């Protein structure tokens, strides 16, 4: 299949440049601080993984946050038991989610369509309820699993890592994982994750997944056993989620059960659809948009709105502040809901399709021949 004439190399170079320069372009939109940039990277990774399942096979999982949570809990336990070095944490976090994804996927993939969605949702809700209550010895319930001074950290003790006065912080062979170094670490993982996703999209394996989405019945009569394809895709996307979850623990060593709630699963669905399901870049775009809303729009208040619109005449300024006010601050959820509806109604291909339309419009205005929308032709089914 032809996704694009662009070669992998060029796409990767552009992608790497954009990701690593985030602290610079982030300043333009007021997002240049480590925590938000880390979140961009982590949730982009989460959404990329979700997209491998949903975007390629069309199976809509409503329980992916489970794997995010499993990755986080595993990572924090690694910090507590073995070492503050992040390597064991992210490796085991990813593997553990893979195991969970295998079990849940094995059962859920026996059904398709909305039955599959409800099965994943049911598993996720069970995991969440148990983590919140009965499994408290492992998860520390509502407060969330935290590091403590008294943790054994056998590996660190073995290698004689000095015990600090306060809580130890996560590191990658001595490089601290908070602040910008933490972001760059996440960014590198994101780049690797994106590369893997790019390879999958352009492999025969990826093509077969897309074909499953397009017509699963035919795939069976064509001689493919679709179950292992679906299960492997489910596991890969679960492992992405686990990796994202362990990165959350790497940048901030705390894991809470609400990470696994169904609304958290819903969030990644929103991200993927908002950006453009089935496209390479769409989910990343969606993740960035939603996290940006959550962190920046939610903090806007009337005073700041006034200063944003201060370039207008006073009465216009007041009108605009009046209109926008319900959508920012504590109203950012409303903003999200409206935006989301607009995208689903008018742009089934997500924001990416919108951008494609705008680009084509400009091209037409400028006299270029309009191009076929190849890349954004991945709507859900």
């Amino acid at each position: 299949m032809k996704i694009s004439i662009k070669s992998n190399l060029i796409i990767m170079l552009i992608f790497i440049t954009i990701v690593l320069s985030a602290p610079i372009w982030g300043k333009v939109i007021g997002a240049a601080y480590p925590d938000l940039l880390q979140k961009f990277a982590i949730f982009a990774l989460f959404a990329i993984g979700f997209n491998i399942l949903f975007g390629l096979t069309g199976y809509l999982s409503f329980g992916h946050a489970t794997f995010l949570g499993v990755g986080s809990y595993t990572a924090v336990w690694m910090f507590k038991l073995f070492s503050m070095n992040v390597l064991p944490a992210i490796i085991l976090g990813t593997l553990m989610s893979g195991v969970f994804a295998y079990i849940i996927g094995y059962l859920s993939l026996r059904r398709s369509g909305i039955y599959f969605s409800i099965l994943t949702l049911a598993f996720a809700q069970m995991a969440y309820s148990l983590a919140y209550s009965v499994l408290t010895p492992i998860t520390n319930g509502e407060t969330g699993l935290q590091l403590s001074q008294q943790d054994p950290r056998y590996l660190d003790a073995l290698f004689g890592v000095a015990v600090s006065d306060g809580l130890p912080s996560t590191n990658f062979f001595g490089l601290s994982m908070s602040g910008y170094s933490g972001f760059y670490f996440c960014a590198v993982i994101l780049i690797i994750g994106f590369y893997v996703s790019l390879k999958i999209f352009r492999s025969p394996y990826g093509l077969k997944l897309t074909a499953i989405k397009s017509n699963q019945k035919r795939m069976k009569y064509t001689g493919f056993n679709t179950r292992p394809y679906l299960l492997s895709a489910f596991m890969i996307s679960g492992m992405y989620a686990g990796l994202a979850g362990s990165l959350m623990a790497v940048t901030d060593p705390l894991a809470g059960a609400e990470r696994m709630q169904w609304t958290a699963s819903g969030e990644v669905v929103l991200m993927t659809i908002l950006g453009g399901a089935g496209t390479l870049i769409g989910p990343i775009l969606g993740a960035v948009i939603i996290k940006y809303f959550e962190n920046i729009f939610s903090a806007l208040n009337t005073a700041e709105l006034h200063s944003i619109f201060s370039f207008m005449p006073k009465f216009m300024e007041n009108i605009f502040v009046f209109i926008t006010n319900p959508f920012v601050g504590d109203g950012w959820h409303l903003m999200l809901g409206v935006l989301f509806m607009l995208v689903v109604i008018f742009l089934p291909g997500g924001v990416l399709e919108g951008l494609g339309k705008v680009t084509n419009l400009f091209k037409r205005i400028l006299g270029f021949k309009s191009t076929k929308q190849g890349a954004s032709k991945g709507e859900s089914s």
Partner: protein
Amino acid sequence: MSYILEIKGVNKTFGGLHALADVNLQIEEGETHAIIGPNGAGKSTLLNCCIGRLIPDSGSVTFNGKNMIGMEAHDINHAGMVRVFQTPEIFPDLSILDNVMIPALAKRDGTFTFNPFKKMADQHDIHDEAMSILRDFSLDDFADHIASSMSRGNKRRLELAMGLIQHPSLLLLDEPTAGMARHDTNNTIELLKEMKRQHGTTKVIIEHDMHVVFSLADRISVLARGHIIATGTPDDIRNDPKVKEAYLGESEDE
């Protein structure tokens, strides 16, 4: 004599309806065998029982000496029995080229291959094979088009191409020319004849169009109300009074 496909005593009921009643049918290697019969005679049910979509209540389906009943659809495909669907079962969201490459991949990769790091663009063997079959069907100009945007006739041709690219030892064709214009139908007949000359592929065809049936079939079986009422050469069938009564007579009335 050994048969490539042997259907013995197959029964299938839906609720109270006896769709197939003690059906026996032998397909010889290399022949083109047509199954005809009025609507609701059980033709499609019979095909579905062969490819694993339905499981007969009793009886056996033996293909190349192996029992097919209870086998998964994908295993039946790899055993060499491939079906072409009446209403096109293509991949509507994919390009024409992809639509043909996927069955080619199935032939090469088996029921499951995990190769996420191979480049699709490097699969030259598959690509060339697909392009060549698209040329045979005059679809090569549309290789980049999304399948759902094609005309119905082109979809039917694509459907045929998807079946043929797997080089099956037995091809089950469910009304391959339904909905085609006359000259498309003729092209298809030529194509199927050509295929027989080149590969000697055994075919079972379900067809309403008697023109197609009599131009292609070596032998014909007539199915009515779940029973095989006659099997023989086209000439035998033409002259069989039972057939006339059950089928041809009816169609003349229409």
